[in-house]
């Protein structure tokens, strides 16, 4: 089950959702807001989602993981709205009989969530600028969006390694 959450992601119900008597292994991942990105101090971060499609695609990713790997249950959630440093942005939990499958499926789900779900991250930096971070395929560019003399100008900033968590 995949869900979008407007408030703090509580990990324990998601973890509980994957528990099973047959499960010998549970792997979890959480992506959190860091205090730095690309070397810049982050003061604020918010996620916006195209909710209908993000939830649908999130459930497709989980169904794919259940199909591809020998796992028992999987659950994931993604935050929307304003987050502060240390907040959980995304959480994934997978149970399996054996650890190999649990690790691989957990990794698959977080990778596909980041790659495919229509969710966008806006970072605001202590030095004032703000950016919609664009990490499609993790090789693209972030477009820095700055109000400038009454019209929009777009300054291209490298979305380097550091936009990945």
């Amino acid at each position, binding site marked *: 089950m995949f869900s979008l959450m407007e408030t703090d992601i509580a990990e324990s119900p998601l973890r509980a959702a994957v528990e099973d008597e047959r499960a010998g292994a549970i792997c979890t991942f959480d992506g959190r807001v860091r205090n730095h990105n690309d070397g810049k101090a982050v003061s604020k971060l918010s996620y916006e989602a195209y909710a209908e499609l993000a939830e*649908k695609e999130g459930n497709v990713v989980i169904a794919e993981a259940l199909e591809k790997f020998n796992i028992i249950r999987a659950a994931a959630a*993604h935050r929307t709205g304003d987050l502060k440093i240390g907040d959980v942005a995304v959480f994934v939990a997978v149970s399996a009989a054996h650890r190999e499958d649990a690790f691989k499926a957990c990794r698959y789900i977080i990778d596909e969530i*980041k790659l495919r779900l229509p*969710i966008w991250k806006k970072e605001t930096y202590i030095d004032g600028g703000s950016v*919609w971070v*664009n990490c*499609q395929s993790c090789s693209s560019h972030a477009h820095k969006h700055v109000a400038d003399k009454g019209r929009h100008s777009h300054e291209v900033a490298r979305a380097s390694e550091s936009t990945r968590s």
Partner: protein
Amino acid sequence: MSLEGSKTVYIKYFALLRDERGLASENISTEAATLAELYNEIRSRHDFSLPVERMSVAVNDDFAEWHNRVNDKDVIVFVPPVAGG
């Protein structure tokens, strides 16, 4: 170039595109045949920064292909590069 009649579609904007358009959604009348034509039409009108190659597109809450036809009453979302997680 389209020889289609006029259609009305509902467009929802997210993230960078919402900022650039200054709106979260709007109804648009268009004669564009394909989703790609429609995006380019709106892009040139509002000076969107992202080329179609960097975008994805969804119709009626499912991902679609840029060469898909535009149908009357479609709900269309142009999807800027995502950055979840």
